[in-house]
């Protein structure tokens, strides 16, 4: 498995922006959960930023490939060259300008201060000092809130921030006025409202490139200027906001709400399909590949751990200790965002498989070792006296008996793995929970959508536990 993944690294065709081709393929990072700028409508990615990006690509002669990820994953993805540009209402500020290249702005907007309806002591930025604000950790608005003295609680996106406000878990959210208006229109919520403006300053949002990609930025910039001049940007903006947000004074924004006033039942019906796709394309293949590869790793490590050779035993112990002693999330981050810095870059899916396999390997190794040790000494001796060498003895006599002992604890590992796959959205892999998040960001229907995703997980795990029973019966048929 590791070898295969290793080859994948070497063999990944360069979709990199550095290529001096006529039509470079640009991988565009975007949230997909930030209506009306970047969201999914009936499974298709759409929104103001998406349309602008497509228009820029047409004009500049790029091919684009959208990569969806939570906001806080976008800059790390840009840094690790997993994406080439971010189209997600990234506000231009000094810190970012020092590290990245911005195009001309394509959105002019105002920050607003949002609180629960019954909160009446927060109307300006000065009021949020000492309050708790829910923000995407790395967003410009988080920095604004922090600078104003608020304590920032990190969330995945605006919809979750709004939900925390409704629940009274946080005091305030600072965000772009258009996104807030869209949320209010989509959900019809009267529980939160806009209480004030951030300040008089207009914030500007633009496309972001890496420092090294000056020529790409210049091409995008030229395209944006042309689209602004020929009225294309204004047209896109009018379509979404009935106003031109691509210039400073484009009129008052009016939004209908991207969520489209669906009932809870309709939301669930619309989301069940994409979630099932998330199960079939994400959860299930991730689980199968990682479990099979993980067991292979575990068997090797367990045997090494029991070896009489110290040079095998010590690394095996270290590996097990490392895997069991660090959070899976950290392992995912190290492999996905960390390794590219030393030149090992895996795409999201293989990276997720590698992290999950290594994780399963560490836990299952100890299970397998324990199971082998619990096979009676006499079985080793009997196999030895009929002349079996070590490998044959293991394969034909010891492991089949150890397997029976290992099935219940390994089933636990498998079920944990199924559920751990819900973590991989942080490495840009889409699975069930990510689909639920996307739908919830449009509609605010957290409870039904999360329950539905829980149902999917439960059904998978239930089916697996039936399989476990059958396997135990089959392996245990000789024990009367």
């Amino acid at each position, binding site marked *: 498995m590791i070898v295969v993944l290793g080859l994948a690294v070497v063999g990944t065709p360069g979709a990199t922006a550095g290529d001096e081709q006529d039509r470079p393929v640009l991988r565009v990072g975007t949230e997909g959960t930030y209506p009306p700028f970047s969201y999914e409508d009936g499974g298709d990615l759409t929104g103001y930023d998406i349309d602008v990006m497509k228009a820029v690509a047409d004009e500049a002669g790029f091919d684009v490939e959208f990569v969806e990820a939570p906001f806080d994953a976008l800059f790390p993805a840009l840094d690790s060259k997993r994406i080439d540009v971010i189209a997600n209402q990234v506000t231009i500020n000094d810190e970012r300008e020092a590290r990245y290249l911005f195009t001309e702005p394509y959105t002019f907007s105002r920050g607003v201060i949002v609180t629960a309806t019954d909160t009446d002591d927060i109307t300006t930025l000065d009021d949020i000092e000492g309050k708790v604000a829910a923000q995407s950790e790395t967003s410009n608005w988080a920095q604004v809130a922090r600078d104003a003295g608020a304590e920032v609680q990190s969330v995945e996106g605006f919809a979750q921030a709004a939900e925390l406000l409704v629940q009274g878990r946080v005091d305030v959210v600072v965000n772009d006025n258009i996104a807030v208006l869209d949320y209010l229109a989509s959900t019809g919520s009267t529980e939160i409202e806009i209480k004030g403006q951030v300040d008089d300053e207009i914030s500007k949002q633009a496309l972001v490139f890496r420092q090294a990609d000056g020529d790409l930025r210049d091409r995008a910039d030229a395209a944006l200027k042309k689209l602004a001049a020929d009225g294309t940007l204004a047209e896109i903006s009018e379509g979404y906001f009935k106003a031109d947000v691509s210039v400073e004074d484009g009129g008052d924004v009016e939004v209908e709400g991207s969520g489209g006033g669906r009932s809870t039942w309709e939301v669930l019906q619309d989301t069940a399909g994409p979630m099932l796709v998330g199960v079939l394309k994400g959860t299930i293949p991730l689980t199968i590949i990682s479990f099979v590869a993980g067991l292979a790793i575990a068997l090797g490590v367990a045997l090494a751990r029991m070896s009489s050779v110290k040079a095998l035993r010590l690394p095996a112990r270290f590996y097990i200790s490392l895997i069991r002693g660090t959070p899976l999330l950290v392992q995912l981050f190290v492999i996905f965002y960390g390794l590219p810095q030393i030149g090992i870059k895996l795409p999201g899916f293989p990276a997720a498989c590698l992290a999950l396999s290594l994780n399963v390997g560490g836990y299952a190794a100890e299970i397998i070792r324990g199971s082998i040790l619990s096979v009676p000494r006499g*079985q080793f001796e*009997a*196999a030895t*006296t*009929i002349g079996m*060498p070590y490998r044959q003895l293991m394969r034909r006599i010891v492991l089949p008996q150890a397997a029976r002992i290992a099935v219940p604890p390994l089933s636990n590992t498998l079920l944990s793995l199924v559920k751990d796959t819900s973590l991989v959205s942080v490495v840009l892999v889409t699975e069930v929970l990510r689909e639920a998040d996307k739908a919830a960001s449009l509609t605010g229907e957290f409870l039904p959508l999360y329950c539905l995703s829980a149902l999917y997980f439960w059904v998978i795990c239930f089916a697996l536990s039936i399989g476990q029973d059958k396997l135990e019966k089959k392996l245990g048929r*000789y024990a009367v």
Partner: protein
Amino acid sequence: MSTTGHLIEVEGLRKSFGDTAVLEDVGFTASSGTCTVLLGPSGSGKTTVLRSLNVLETPDAGVVRIGEAAVDFGELPRDKGLRRKEIRDLRARSGMVFQSHNLFPHKTVLGNIVEGPVQVQGQSPEEAEAEARRLLEQVGLAGRETAYPAQLSGGQQQRVGIARALALKPDVVLLDEPTSALDPELVGEVLAVIRDLSQQGWTMVIVTHEVRFAQDVADQVLFLHSGVVAERGGAEVLTDPQQERTQQFLRRVLEAR
């Protein structure tokens, strides 16, 4: 070691665990077709001697030869591969019957018996199965081919264990207290099978406490005490022991019956 016409030659076996000597200079010979009985109180080293014959225990010094295969434990080859080969060759000369049978629980009766011949000796499954059925008949278990060990009584399990050892067509059959773990009413059927083997001319080395049975089958008796052979002779050792330690031991064993 010179060839003396004996099938088994054991010389100068020594073994100690830490400061405790388990075997001190144990040696014996046995001719083809004979039955050697190892007797002695627990801790006397008799099982260690038996397990040295197929290198389940590795003595610190001494030589074991069975037929053409010999291992000199005092001068094992340095090369790991060579060492393994010597030991494997010696092991291939014997079959072992364990006190607690050690049948493979995940294989059927037939599967247990053909495992060695097919997987190790490379016999064809058909050939090995035919032989296995013949052996099962010999030990009185025809018809139980497809049973799993857990479905058999202790005596039946031990008889399968004997068939498994014989299937390898070894030069020597080693039996380590083959009836000690059995309920008393099952001992007879197993002893009857072993007696049968002796009459068929199998060469056997047995560790047992069944003195009366030993009288029937033994061509040679070794009485071990504290890691040395305290007395040796024919079956008459059991009825007319010369050493006091042997007399004491036999008295205790016979009284316990």
